[in-house]
């Protein structure tokens, strides 16, 4: 069978992360494994820093990326995407002490953090008057908010739920405000022009969705 190498930035729980045995696990991992099974290919995951994850695709260090990559027009201009395999949205988290803010726009004159190069960053930058701060890992943004250096964090909905609910310290200190304010789809990224792989993966995604495997995976990781 055909084997593909897939990059992921395993610092984005619960979508992709490293477990206690240093195995890469998470929603995306389970999902792609299911897709691969349906499509009849073997997958090898490679942990890669988010910062350069697209550069690695350019240089051919791997064939695809599955790392909670939102399908955007800018990205579509440079890379090819599969069909969206799940839909999520960006969400705002603020300290519990902040009783007033409901949207990013309410944080004018303040600092909002996000992971570098994510759609979260792009959303923050859209709002004039809010200072954007970018982090290598989204966890560091939460740490910084715990130290009071920033006033809000924007990230993907499942990640927010994970961070805000799982760690006691964060649960005591932070709250999610409002609902997801964007509608995005995650896609698997391949090099521009690699139609063959896109078609193969799309076929697998369709099959997985048809068999409702994805809802099982969803309940397993996102609860």
């Amino acid at each position, binding site marked *: 069978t055909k084997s593909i190498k897939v990059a992921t930035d395993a610092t984005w729980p619960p979508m992709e992360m490293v477990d206690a045995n240093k195995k890469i696990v998470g929603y995306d991992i389970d999902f792609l494994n299911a897709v691969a099974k349906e499509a009849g290919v073997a997958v090898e995951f490679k942990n890669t820093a988010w910062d350069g994850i697209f550069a690695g695709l350019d240089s051919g260090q791997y064939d695809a990326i599955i790392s909670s990559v939102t399908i955007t027009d800018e990205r579509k201009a440079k890379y090819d995407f599969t069909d969206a395999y799940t839909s999520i949205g960006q969400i705002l988290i603020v300290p519990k002490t902040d009783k007033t803010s409901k949207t990013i726009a309410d944080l004018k004159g303040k600092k909002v953090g996000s992971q570098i190069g994510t759609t979260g960053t792009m959303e923050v930058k859209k709002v004039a008057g809010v200072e954007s701060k970018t982090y290598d890992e989204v966890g*560091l943004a939460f740490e910084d908010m715990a130290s009071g250096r920033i006033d809000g964090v924007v990230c993907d909905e499942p990640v927010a739920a994970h961070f805000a609910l799982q760690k006691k310290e964060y649960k005591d200190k932070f709250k999610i405000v409002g609902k997801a304010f964007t509608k995005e789809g995650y896609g698997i990224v391949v090099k521009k022009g690699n139609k063959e792989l896109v078609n193969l993966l799309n076929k697998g995604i369709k099959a997985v969705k048809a068999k409702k495997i994805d809802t099982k995976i969803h309940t397993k990781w996102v609860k």
Partner: protein
Amino acid sequence: MINKQSTHTPIEVGDGAAIPHKDDSGLFTAWRIAFFGAIILCLFLAFGRSEQYLAIFKFVPDGILVTFKVTIGAILLSIVFGLIAGLGRISSNRLINGTASLYVEVIRGIPLLVQLFYIYYALGRFIRIPDILSAIIAMAFCYGAYMAEIFRAGIQSIPKGQIEAALSLGMSRRQAMQQVILPQAFKVVLPPIGNEFIALLKDSSLVSILAVADLLRRGREYASETFNYFETYTVIALIYLIMTLFFSKLISLMEEKLNDGH
């Protein structure tokens, strides 16, 4: 032969950029080629064939400012830390001496990047200080350990007779230090401090990891949005190169001035 060269000839290679001295013509020429070459390349890229590069140059300037802020803040603060720890290292009080030595040994034993993470995030738990300031404190705390050794060596390079002469005139230890030893030591430590400055300018790029929006961070942000990694890092590297070369030249000129003086 009568073995003039001992096996322990100390070879000095600073961790800063190569400060071009007059007597090293190779390096001197290399400095020129590198410096002017980098400037010309920058101009060529900015106003040359593609818009891309110009966009990068427009994106990063506030990062340069932050880089300077961090560098200058950290060097000044590290001089304070270093002076205190350096005086501690030559103190005859065992506790003070021990503490200062431990500071020097522990700090120099841990990677700067790890310390930055540690001080930045650990510090954040206990005191609430703005991010650039905590980055500066973290950098200065690390560099203070190196500065301490520079000050210690500088002070110890002043002949013992100097302090004895001051003491025998009735000055207190503190007065002798302030009036006689430190002003002389100051001149001796200037060149190595210059070297540390350059090293710090470069190492300040590490604060980008702490989400401080310095030059490198700005570049990474730009690259992660536009995917123009090659172009962006080329520009970032060129800007750093121009800055360090400029300052190493400045330092070399200052040293010359200093040596020309009395």
